């Protein structure tokens, strides 16, 4: 299979499947289960397809004549695409009970999920600002709607409202930025812009600097960096758990995928200009995020707030990209993977035990789970440890790379603050563990069913552990080294 084929086949598959379900949904033969399995199968096939493209180093401009070099398929995008698809697959697989128990999860939901994945796929391949924007909008709008799916729920509607309003607001900043860049560079293609920047002096790049700044603001909004991320707690709270998992685990990574590309191609020349801003953003984000996470009473909101903190960590690596390009960039890749699998797992567990109800999972709801459901509790513990960056989990390795790259870039103090917020994060993550294990069960034993969901949760937990200690010494399964290689290839395929 040629890579070019994969690059076209994956989005096409997603699109076709989406449209098929959309139409099929009106048929009487449609049942929720069928829709569910069609979606799962699509995602699985697409994942297998895209995973094929992972592991070698290449970079192909897709149909340059037709698409005018607007999308590029390289290891970088292949890796991310596989991640999205895997993420979508895992979210859906774990959320079986949610899909079954709720009546608002109609066939349109599957369609929107597939559309949003389609948007992300394009986003990760986009090499042009407008294409990226539209892809981002496709993904965002699908997610907006997914958030507001449960229109009987006031909370969901409110979350939808906030997300949509602020999202549109931030999108207009992106467009303003795009306009300014276009005004100066006369192009929206990343390569052309990069070439323009290299060619000219700073005083004829003023609008590019300002425009990039505006685009960065949109990105900051999407990754919920402070002060642009005020929405995140509310929206995560209002959305149903699988959707939250999807947003935290998949959508955020998609944004980062695009960000990383833009950064490595264009921003890197303005590194001196943006570094202080990103550093400031990282510090504020980590600080405020951990403040918010500490006071939350519900696990879901805590995870939401902590996802802000994780954005802060990634910003650290972004700040270090200029000085320690390759290590920082691959650190981001690795960290994203680490965060992705841990967050999907954590939210997945929550959605598994919430059984589709829209109630918040409070800390108290976890009491005594270790007694009744040891495997679930153990998995959740592992996810928490990973999010907290505890050694022997993948989260630690991710944090390790990020901190190393920060120190390598000379930002030791930034690493120090990162560590400090990791320290604070210990509190709220371990609080979950404490509730799981130390409190007496407040409720009677519940039968959750859905062995498949459980299996995927446990599988994610195993991956988290293996990503923390895995070595080819022990078993012939790719471990940390392989992941590392992968992220390095991805970064190198960007042609740096």
């Amino acid at each position, binding site marked *: 299979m040629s890579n070019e084929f994969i690059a076209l086949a994956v989005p096409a598959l997603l*699109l076709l499947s989406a449209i098929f379900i*959309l139409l099929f949904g009106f048929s009487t033969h449609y049942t929720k289960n069928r829709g569910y399995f069609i979606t799962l199968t699509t995602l699985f096939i697409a994942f297998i397809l895209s995973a094929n493209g992972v592991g070698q180093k290449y970079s192909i401009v897709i149909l340059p004549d*037709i*698409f*005018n070099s*607007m*999308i590029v398929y390289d290891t970088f995008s292949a890796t991310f695409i596989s991640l999205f698809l895997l993420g979508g697959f895992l979210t859906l697989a774990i959320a079986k009970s949610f899909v079954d128990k709720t*009546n*608002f999860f*109609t066939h*349109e*939901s599957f*369609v*929107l999920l597939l*559309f949003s994945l*389609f948007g992300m796929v*394009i986003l990760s391949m986009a090499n042009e600002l*407008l*294409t990226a924007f*539209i*892809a981002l*909008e*496709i993904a965002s*709008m*699908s997610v*907006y*709607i997914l958030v*507001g*799916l449960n*229109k*009987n729920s006031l909370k969901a509607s409110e979350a*939808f409202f906030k997300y949509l309003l602020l999202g549109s607001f931030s999108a207009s900043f992106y467009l303003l930025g795009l306009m*300014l860049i276009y*005004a*100066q560079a*006369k192009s929206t293609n990343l390569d052309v812009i990069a070439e323009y920047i290299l060619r000219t002096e700073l*005083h*004829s790049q*003023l*609008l590019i600097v*300002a425009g990039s700044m505006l685009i960065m603001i949109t990105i900051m909004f999407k990754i919920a960096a402070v002060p642009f991320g005020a929405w995140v707690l509310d929206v995560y709270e209002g959305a149903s758990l699988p959707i939250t998992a999807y947003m935290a685990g998949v959508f955020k990574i998609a944004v980062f995928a695009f960000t990383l590309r833009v950064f490595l191609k264009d921003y890197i020349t303005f590194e001196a200009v943006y570094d202080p801003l990103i550093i400031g953003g990282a510090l504020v984000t980590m600080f405020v995020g951990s403040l918010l996470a500490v006071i939350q009473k519900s696990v879901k909101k805590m995870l939401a707030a902590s996802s802000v903190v994780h954005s802060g960590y990634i910003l650290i690596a972004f700040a270090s990209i200029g000085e320690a390009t390759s290590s920082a960039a691959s650190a981001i890749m690795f960290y994203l993977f680490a965060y992705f699998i841990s967050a999907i797992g954590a939210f997945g567990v929550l959605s598994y035990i919430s059984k589709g109800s829209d109630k918040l999972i409070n800390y108290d709801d976890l009491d005594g789970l270790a007694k009744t459901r040891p495997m679930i509790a153990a998995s959740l513990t592992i996810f928490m440890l990973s999010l907290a960056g505890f050694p022997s989990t993948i989260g630690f390795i991710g944090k390790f790379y990020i901190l190393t790259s920060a120190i390598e870039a000379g930002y030791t103090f930034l690493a120090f603050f990162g560590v400090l917020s990791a320290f604070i994060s210990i509190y709220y993550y371990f609080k979950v563990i404490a509730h799981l294990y130390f409190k007496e069960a407040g409720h009677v034993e519940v039968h959750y069913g859905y062995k498949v969901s459980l299996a995927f949760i446990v599988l994610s937990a195993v991956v988290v552990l293996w990503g923390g200690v895995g070595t080819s010494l022990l078993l012939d399964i790719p471990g940390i080294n392989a992941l590392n290689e992968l992220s390095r290839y991805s970064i190198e395929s960007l042609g740096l």
Partner: protein
Amino acid sequence: MRSLALQNEILFAILALVAIVSSIVMISAHRPIDSALSFIVTLISVAALFALVNATFLFVVQIIIYAGAILSLILFIIMFLNIKDENLPDEKHKNRWLFAISIIIAPFSAILIDLIMRSDIAVHGVVREGFGTIKDVGLTLFSKWVLPFELVSILLLVALVGAVTLSKRSE
């Protein structure tokens, strides 16, 4: 030629003034219907500004889609929801807010304007015949921008699906 340029500038000044004033009225009017009406004025003056620089196709699109479709939609919604005056939010501190936010945003605008003034972005390209016509735009669209065009269609589909999903009464 000079007189044409001058004429253009005068026209621009008038249209700009109309656009700004009407947009200010739009954001400060109490009743949404007033806002919508003044917004139409803004949109039309913007459309006129399009026309001023030969973007005839976009002028038409602006009038049809914005002033026509979207604004009608807004008006329709306002009517449809039958929002009465007493249902409107009681915005006691509206003017304070407007003032405060204007102050806050002033540096942003000032900086951007300053940056624009400083940069030498204008290339004064020579406008060829038929520039901005539907043919011209269409050729560009289907030669260079096929992908965004296709993607936008998907975006619209998404919005459509979403609007239907959300608006239909749940069974």
